[in-house]
């Protein structure tokens, strides 16, 4: 039996559980100085002057960099990774991303925007000096909230973005949708706030860089989800140097969740500082600093309407969304609520026609970028909340309304109205399995029991779908003199366990010992070029890529084996890790063949010449065809009406991720994803003060991170309905838990409060908000 589909324990664990992991902050660079960013205390201000003279004379200070110096040196600016051509205004005009220098020169546009970079012998010395930098600010009116920014006459973040709209975008057919609505037997309407969250990977961001004067090369260790995208940005856009002069290395990374995809100002700054001051420079974000300087997630307001016929079948759907982009369109920020989720707006339902209108709103807040799911949890939240409400209004069961509208498995591959080609899935089966798993039928008795204890019990359901795949990354397989198999990938794990799962594929496919395989990732020079890890696509990319590269290895191996076994290629077969000559019972293990090819001593010259790199091979999975992870979530909660506190009592998931390579790791991904969804629904909330755009929730003292005693154990099972569009048959599991969780939890909260007359609930349903909602409903 092979390793694939087995719950193999992770090989990377050994270093993590013994404290031998190596994160950026653990990288030792001899003689390194410490970088520290001085940040704006204002949400919006004009910088009249920056005086660093006194600060430069402080003990231990090596130097201070300000924006005007970078401008003079021709250093480039940050920008959006989302191409301008892919997302323009409806009228064809270009969108506004703003212009983000590494260190701002004339204006600050959010609290936490860096204005100077201090380099000193210690963190304390750097902070002491930063306090002595005199920045003369002229404070300007600021907008932090969507409603403030779109209000008539609001102060503008960027003058060229009228009304603070960075870009407006639509999909579907407005007129046809209107026509369909006119025929509706029932229309459900909902207004929803998707609250702003702070990513909070447990390892904050950090970078350590050095410049080698002799060679002119830069080396950067950075917390990232992919070394290549960061290397590309810094080399091409910021330092404007040939790619080969910069090596970006991502060692162990303490969580990413979308945050560590982008290039942040501090990363090139440590390189620039190293070049300028002649020593390695390290910068590590502190947590409070992270709250102000990391990109945030979510933050949108939507109005949605769904039209139904008399049987509760969807006739049309329309959504209107404003999302907070922050002060700059950076990374994937501009595209997160429009382009990225565009194929899953209609969820798992047959939606004959729809119209989706989305505006990106500029505000004086830190930029908003990807957070686990990036747009798809938001889309699922809207449609799963409105389906829930529609069921209540029409007197249908939560399961019934979904079953009536599901795309049926026999209809697949199914081309949706918005153009998604859903290859496979069995939504009915997952839903039925989840009902059983969660004992849906036994709920009334549990509710009655809660009521006896004075508690309000509610249950909620959500059925999510995601679209993933794309962004091809290469895979290299090479054989070393020491008899090891190196697998280079363009993806970059930061908790996903790729060292284990990818090795399992290689071991099964090539029949080499699992223990002989080393994964090479997170290195812009040593690993093949790739887009990093994000969007639940790494197995799609690297896993399928490994199959291709392995096929190439086997093809070359057959040729080498034929020479070694003194037979013809068509007489050589490969199975169970060995090449066999059909005519005799002679065989050669793959690693022996690889070594023979590597050393070349036993092979004819012609073959040696042709197989210059022995059996070493590359492969890229670049086939078209999306994948659609999907699943049913059911959540049960209990509310203490006296305090408003919501307790999650049980949580069940039945997913379809296609082929499941490692059930242990997949379950872990779902648990963690669900926890983030529950966190957003019930406790996490990033608040900016109205009027001043000051960050109110700026540390773990104010921002509620889900803890062990906030969460239940999770029930998780899956149905393996293989994806038909990639060789492994996988669909992707990384974000799925988060995509389904928020609507399931919120539907459960609404269910618990419905009989009290509550009709609207918005995230996060903290104890305070539940209590206030109950007070209002009861006329208090």
């Amino acid at each position: 039996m092979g390793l694939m589909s087995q719950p193999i324990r992770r090989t990377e664990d050994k270093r993590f559980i013994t404290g031998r992991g190596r994160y950026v902050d653990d990288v030792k660079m001899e003689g390194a100085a410490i970088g520290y960013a001085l940040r704006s205390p204002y949400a919006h201000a004009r910088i009249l002057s920056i005086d660093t003279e006194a600060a430069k004379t402080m003990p231990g200070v090596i130097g201070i960099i300000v924006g005007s110096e970078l401008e003079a040196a021709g250093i480039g600016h940050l920008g959006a990774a989302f191409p301008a051509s892919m997302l323009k205004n409806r009228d064809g005009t270009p969108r506004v991303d703003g212009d983000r220098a590494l260190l701002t020169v004339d204006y600050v546009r959010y609290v936490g925007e860096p204005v100077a970079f201090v380099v000193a012998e210690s963190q304390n010395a750097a902070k002491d000096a930063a306090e002595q930098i005199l920045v003369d600010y002229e404070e300007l009116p600021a907008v932090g909230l969507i409603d403030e920014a779109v209000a008539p006459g609001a102060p503008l973040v960027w003058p060229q973005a009228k009304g603070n709209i960075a870009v407006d975008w639509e999909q579907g057919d407005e007129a046809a949708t209107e026509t369909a609505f006119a025929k509706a037997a029932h229309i459900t309407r909902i207004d929803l706030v998707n609250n702003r969250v702070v990513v909070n990977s447990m390892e904050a961001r950090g970078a350590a860089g050095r410049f080698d004067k002799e060679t002119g090369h830069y080396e950067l260790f950075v917390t990232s989800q992919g070394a290549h995208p960061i290397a590309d940005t810094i080399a091409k856009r910021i330092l404007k140097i040939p790619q080969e002069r910069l090596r970006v290395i991502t060692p162990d990374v303490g969580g990413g969740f979308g945050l560590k995809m982008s290039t942040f100002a501090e990363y090139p700054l440590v390189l620039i500082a190293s070049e300028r001051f002649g020593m390695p420079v390290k910068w590590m974000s502190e947590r409070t600093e992270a709250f102000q300087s990391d990109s945030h997630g979510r933050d949108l307001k939507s109005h949605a309407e769904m039209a139904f016929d008399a049987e509760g079948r969807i006739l049309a759907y329309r959504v209107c969304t404003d999302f907070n982009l922050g002060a700059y369109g950076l990374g994937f920020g501009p595209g997160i609520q429009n382009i990225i989720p565009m194929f899953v707006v209609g969820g798992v339902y047959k939606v004959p026609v729809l119209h989706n209108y989305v505006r990106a709103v500029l505000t004086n807040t830190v930029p908003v970028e990807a957070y686990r799911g990036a747009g798809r949890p938001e889309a699922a939240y809207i449609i799963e909340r409105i389906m829930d409400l529609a069921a209540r209004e029409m007197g249908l069961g939560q399961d019934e309304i979904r079953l009536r509208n599901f795309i049926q498995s026999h209809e697949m591959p199914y081309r949706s109205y918005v153009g998604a080609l859903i290859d496979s899935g069995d939504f009915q089966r997952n839903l039925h399995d989840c009902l059983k798993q969660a004992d849906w039928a036994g709920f009334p008795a549990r509710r009655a029991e809660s009521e006896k204890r004075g508690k309000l019990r509610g249950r909620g359901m959500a059925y999510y779908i995601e679209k993933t795949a794309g962004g091809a990354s290469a895979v290299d397989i090479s054989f070393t003199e020491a008899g090891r198999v190196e697998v280079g990938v363009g993806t970059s794990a930061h908790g996903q366990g790729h060292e284990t799962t990818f090795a399992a594929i290689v071991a099964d496919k090539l029949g080499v010992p699992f223990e002989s395989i080393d994964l090479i990732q997170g290195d812009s020079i040593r690993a093949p070029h790739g887009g990093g890890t994000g969007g639940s696509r790494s197995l799609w990319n690297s896993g399928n890529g490994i199959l291709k590269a392995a096929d190439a290895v086997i093809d070359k191996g057959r040729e080498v084996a034929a020479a070694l076994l003194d037979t013809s290629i068509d007489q050589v077969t490969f199975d169970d890790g060995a090449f066999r000559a059909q005519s005799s019972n002679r065989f050669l293990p793959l690693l022996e063949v690889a070594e023979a090819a590597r050393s070349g001593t036993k092979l004819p010259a012609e073959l040696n010449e042709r197989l210059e790199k022995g059996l070493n091979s590359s492969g890229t999975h670049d086939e078209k065809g999306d994948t659609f992870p999907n699943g049913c979530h059911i959540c049960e909660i209990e509310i203490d009406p006296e305090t408003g506190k919501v307790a999650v009592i049980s949580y069940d998931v039945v997913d379809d991720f296609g082929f499941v390579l490692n059930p242990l790791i997949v379950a872990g991904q779902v648990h963690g994803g669900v926890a983030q969804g529950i966190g957003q629904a019930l406790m996490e909330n990033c608040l900016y003060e109205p009027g001043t755009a000051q960050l109110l929730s700026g540390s773990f003292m104010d921002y509620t991170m889900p803890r062990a005693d906030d969460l239940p154990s999770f029930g998780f099972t899956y149905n393996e309905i293989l994806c038909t569009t990639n060789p492994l048959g996988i669909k992707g599991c990384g974000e799925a838990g988060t995509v389904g969780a928020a609507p399931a939890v919120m539907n459960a909260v609404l269910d618990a409060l419905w009989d009290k007359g509550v009709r609207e609930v918005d995230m996060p349903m903290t104890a305070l908000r539940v209590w206030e909602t109950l007070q209002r409903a009861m006329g208090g």
Partner: protein
Amino acid sequence: MVGTVSVAFSVNGRDVKAKVEPRTLLVTFLRENLGLTGTHVGCDTSQCGACCVLLDGRSVKSCTILAVQADGASVTTIEGLGTPEKLHPMQIAFNENHGLQCGFCTPGMIMSAVDFAQGNAEPTPDQVREWLEGNICRCTGYHNIVASVEAGARAMAKA
């Protein structure tokens, strides 16, 4: 002008003597002076617990203790618990139960769990969850951490 102070304590069974600035945190001393980088810093408000070590056998947050406060004490870090060749039962339990993903909170989580298990051979999941109030994980949703601590506590009792 502020001077330095002498500290002497035992770290993972080894005697350590040094002169430090009084404001040096224990975690900074462990990481920078001793190179014990398994102890992590995940926040600056004493909430996350990534920096947990044992001080005279009890779990504490090494980011909220001055190195000089540990003078005369015995400190155990994750590196002193077990090695890749000879793992501690709690370390084995975390591996077996997939109690970690990115691994960043893991050393603190394990040190906290070891302390907990000293007095709880047969813990319930609720007891584990309550104990872990001082340790934040962003990856796992805690489900497998709770399973790990339960298993580790049982294994420690048997060992």
